[in-house]
């Protein structure tokens, strides 16, 4: 799909549980991304489900962050 944005999907099973990073969806709009997340990650009746544009996700540690002082 041209012009799509990648979204990270987060969910929590029950109140009191940890929030999990479930995966991603790619969509043309925020509204579409929400419905994609609802259908694609339908293995649970989530207590909380959210999407975040991946470009808005700023990694601080882990992932592809290297803790090296530039030369």
């Amino acid at each position: 799909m041209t012009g799509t944005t990648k979204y990270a999907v987060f969910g929590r099973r029950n109140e009191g549980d940890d929030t999990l990073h479930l995966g991603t969806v790619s969509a043309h709009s925020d509204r579409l991304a929400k419905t994609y997340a609802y259908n694609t990650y339908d293995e649970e009746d989530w207590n909380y489900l959210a999407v975040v544009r991946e470009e808005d996700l700023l990694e601080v540690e882990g992932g592809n962050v290297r803790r090296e002082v530039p030369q």
Partner: protein
Amino acid sequence: MSEWPAAAVDYVQAITDTKLVLGHRYAQWSLAGPSLEDDIGGSSAAQEEVGHVRQLFRKLESQGRDGDWLRGDRDPEEFANASCLDAIDGDWTEYMATIAPVDRAAWYMLDAVDRDDMDGMITKMGEDEYFHLEYHDARLETLADESPEKLRSTLAETLPSALALIGPENLDDDADPLVDAGFTSQSVEGIRERFVDHYRDLFADTDVSLEDVDWDAPDADAWDETRRRVGGGGIRKEDLVQIRGERNAEFAIE
């Protein structure tokens, strides 16, 4: 269960048949979407519609409709589905512009039913429908950018067909027999208004013109009140073969 007025049985039959054919269209198109997420959503909606249909079948059986007849032992002309679902010849955009208004119209009609003994069932259906309708609108918004002309021409056919399913505008608060009988809490005219407003708003700031849409359809005199459409026609033989499960009849379990 108490007996419904005859007009109410026809009303629920039309919702049910529309959902039956709609569920089948969802399933047929479940591999044809532009992304895997669309396909997953379509096959999910297909199951949910079947889920709704089998509960509605039980209600209709309690009103004397025959179970086998309901499940497909009848001619295409005996199905009271929205006419635009009879056949969808086109691509995925045309498919989306066909099913979206129909799913919404059928939900508004159900939502108008005001019966204590159907309240929980309809609430449960609404939980599914919320996401169907959200998804459709989100998709129609993106398609309005990508192919406004195709949307325009398809909606010019499908919106009047969905309006015919809801019913003619002369069925207002004073004239709607279902409101009079206390079966629905909103008249056909009220449902139409809700429906029309929704689509006018959705496309207001897009390149999709709804000027050609006949918002007054259906003509009350030409309207078939049983099949809730204007004119004849019906689903194709091939659809009926699939709905009946004819090809695999030998594997059916009673």
